């Protein structure tokens, strides 16, 4: 019997096999002219509104987002951005969504969570899995802001491990459901009118299954229903204006029609929702990264020490250059994935995870560097630097911790090796596919990709079982893949931009920026690969084991 064949256009999956299918990132995807024009008009409008209507410092200090801001999001029609026209929205795709998330995040990280929780998470189950009747009933009210949504998946005992979910719903004789459970750290909780709640439901094929073995289903539960209690706001380190509460459901009756998707399909619904949600989060990081970068450059050119602008000092330049290089790379990775999503690729799970890991970690470093450039002033609440740092911290945790996502990427990437699946890839990229100015970086990226394939295959042959249980090795393989995915995104985006640039000086500036951006990613990839042979892993295990007894 021949091995099963997996056809995938996923660059990240291919990287684990040492392949770089050119069609997965070249030419760099660009939306059609009309989408571009519409997106620019929307972004300009939202940017000018956000500058007038949102006061990020006041939102942070007062720990609340004024009602007028949330009403403003509705009045502008922003909450219907991705809702199809027939349901009251304007039906834009992931590229436009990510640009809008970026521009709102550029103004205020707390405010953008309202859109993320509502449109990026709560609305998705009905958008992706709802019946026509459910779409007609829910989407128009989501789009016009009459209903503000919240996504209720996490529980105290079910964070990274959704398998620990204990909320449950029982089918009533009249077809409705009786739902009970407590959800933790729920975004938008205090003002949402509806919660997308994930709860265990009976398995018709195995009615006596213990609770934790029952399948999960997704319900829309109205906040006004009897038995729904929203607790006081959590006291958080960052995103202080956003609403985060515990929400408990005590025998809440949910009408039959508000089970979203099939009974038992909840896990799949949650995964699909988080998949695009992570991509949106990466876009938010771009917005905050641009904010921090702009502030750092202003500071570095205005602040004079030892008789010159601090921007003239090498160690400050190292930080400033890194910021610009990282912002370029964050955009490249995120917009490459947006292009895949918008052209209808179904397999972007790993690309989305790469975007989330890369953007959240680069923003964290970049925000700290911006604060460093500002010096002691950056530590003062009077200035925005420390707020950006506080707001950036949660990104490494929510929508899948970066550790969990690294094991997810490796687990998925290694699958063909364990299952002896034959994967089909289009022809791999060659150095000539890239702008001539970037040939050296392209050759190096292709060489590291080949090394990753060889190393992965060697490890799988040596001891597949050990590899499956070894998070450290998985994380290093993933790290190499994340860096390579981003490097190829940078090289592809830059190749397209260099070809279009007419002005010699602009072109030279662009080449400098993208070479720096690509080289930093390649250093990251090489380091992660080199750490595969790192003897410290064994020491780390032993040091922790001896401490915990």
């Amino acid at each position: 019997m021949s091995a099963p064949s997996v056809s995938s256009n996923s660059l990240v999956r291919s990287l684990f096999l040492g392949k770089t299918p050119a069609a997965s990132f070249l030419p760099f995807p660009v939306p059609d002219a009309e989408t571009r024009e519409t997106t620019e008009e929307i972004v300009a409008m939202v940017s000018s509104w956000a500058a007038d209507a949102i006061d990020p410092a006041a939102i942070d200090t007062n720990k609340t987002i004024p009602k007028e801001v949330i009403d403003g999001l509705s009045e502008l029609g922003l909450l219907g951005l991705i809702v199809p026209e027939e349901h009251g929205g304007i039906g834009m795709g992931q590229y436009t969504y990510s640009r809008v998330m970026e521009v709102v995040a550029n103004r205020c990280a707390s405010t953008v969570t309202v859109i993320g929780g509502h449109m990026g998470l709560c609305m998705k189950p009905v958008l992706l899995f709802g019946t026509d009747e459910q779409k007609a009933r829910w989407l128009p009210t989501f789009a016009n802001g009459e209903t503000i949504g919240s996504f209720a998946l996490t529980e105290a005992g079910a964070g990274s491990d959704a398998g620990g979910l204990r909320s449950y719903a029982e089918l009533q004789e009249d077809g409705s459901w009786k739902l009970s459970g407590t959800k933790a750290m729920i975004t938008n909780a205090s003002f949402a009118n509806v919660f997308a709640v994930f709860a265990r439901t009976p398995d018709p094929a195995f009615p006596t299954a213990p609770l934790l073995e029952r399948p999960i289903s997704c319900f829309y539960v109205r906040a006004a229903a009897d038995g729904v209690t929203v607790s006081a706001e959590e006291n958080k380190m960052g995103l202080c204006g956003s609403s985060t509460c515990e929400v408990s459901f005590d025998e809440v009756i949910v009408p039959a029609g508000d089970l979203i998707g099939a009974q038992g399909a909840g896990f799949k619904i949650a995964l699909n929702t988080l998949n695009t949600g992570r991509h949106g989060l990466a876009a938010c990081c771009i917005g905050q990264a641009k904010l921090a970068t702009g502030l750092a450059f202003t500071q570095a050119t205005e602040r004079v020490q030892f008789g010159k602008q601090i921007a003239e000092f090498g160690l400050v330049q190292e930080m400033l250059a890194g910021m610009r290089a990282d912002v370029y790379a964050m955009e490249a990775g995120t917009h490459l994935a947006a292009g895949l999503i918008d052209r209808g690729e179904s397999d972007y799970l790993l690309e989305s995870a790469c975007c989330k890991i890369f953007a959240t970690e680069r923003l964290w470093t970049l925000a700290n560097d911006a604060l460093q450039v500002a010096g002691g002033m950056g530590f003062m609440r009077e200035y925005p630097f420390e707020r950006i740092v506080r707001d950036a911290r949660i990104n490494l945790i929510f929508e899948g911790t970066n550790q969990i996502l690294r094991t997810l990427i490796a687990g998925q990437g290694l699958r063909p090796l364990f299952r002896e699946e034959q994967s089909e890839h289009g022809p791999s990229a060659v150095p000539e596919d890239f702008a001539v100015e970037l040939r050296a970086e392209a050759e190096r990226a292709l060489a590291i990709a080949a090394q990753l394939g060889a190393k992965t295959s060697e490890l799988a042959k040596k001891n597949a079982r050990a590899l499956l249980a070894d998070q450290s090795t998985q994380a290093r393989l993933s790290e190499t893949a994340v860096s390579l995915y981003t490097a190829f995104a940078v090289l592809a985006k830059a190749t397209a931009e260099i070809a279009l640039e007419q002005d010699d000086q602009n072109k030279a500036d662009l080449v400098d920026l993208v070479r720096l951006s690509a080289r930093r990613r390649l250093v990251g990839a090489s380091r992660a690969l080199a750490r595969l042979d790192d003897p410290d892993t064994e020491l780390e295990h032993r040091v922790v084991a001896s401490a915990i007894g």
Partner: protein
Amino acid sequence: MNIVACIKRVPATETQPKIASDGKGMDHSRVEYMLSFYDEIALEEAIRTKEAAGGEVTALTLGPAEATKEIRDCLARGADKGTLLTDPEWHARDTRTTARALAAQVTALGAEIVFCGRQATDRDNAAVGPMMATYLGWACVTDVIELSIDGTKGHAKRESERGIESYTFDLPAVITCQKGLNEPRYAGLKGIMAAKKKPIEEIAPELVQNMTEVLGVELPPARPAGRIIGQGTDAIPALLEALRTEAKVL
């Protein structure tokens, strides 16, 4: 009511102006443009007038082909159609040439009321609106901060150095709009999508010769660097002295 809002494409507020190589104007390469601030108020008043009295709003401008972007912005906010008097040399026209071309088109459109910004934020001439009214032989109230239209009669308040002046006038009229008259709306997503279906007419205007000629343009001199006179309370006498003798503000 047949309503026209005259708008202008101007360099965005954050633009750092550079002088063109001939020294007679601005270098227009790499400049981002936007709708002039006071024209946003004019457009808003035009839309509010339509919402109160019915009718149609035309956004009218003299500009390059790219000015469809600013017209599209007006359509997204609620204007019904746009007219672009296409002129690649728009930035070199003097106020009289511009006013004559706009007045001719206002007549062709059959407008009953025209709203302009009090001035464009690039040259700050504050002249095109009143000149247009003169060519049309219409009433004109400038710097309007309050307006009501009742049939064919209008009531306006304008701000002047002497205080608030109140006027009444008969339509047709030209109104130039001052900050405070209204709070311009944002287009919104629906508006942006609706604008795509609204018509923009592009017309090659008949233009008269300029009566003024630009001889040269210079940037203002760079501001001298600040000076730290001293530290703490000991420095106050020296500071007072400098404010009296150097800055001459005391």
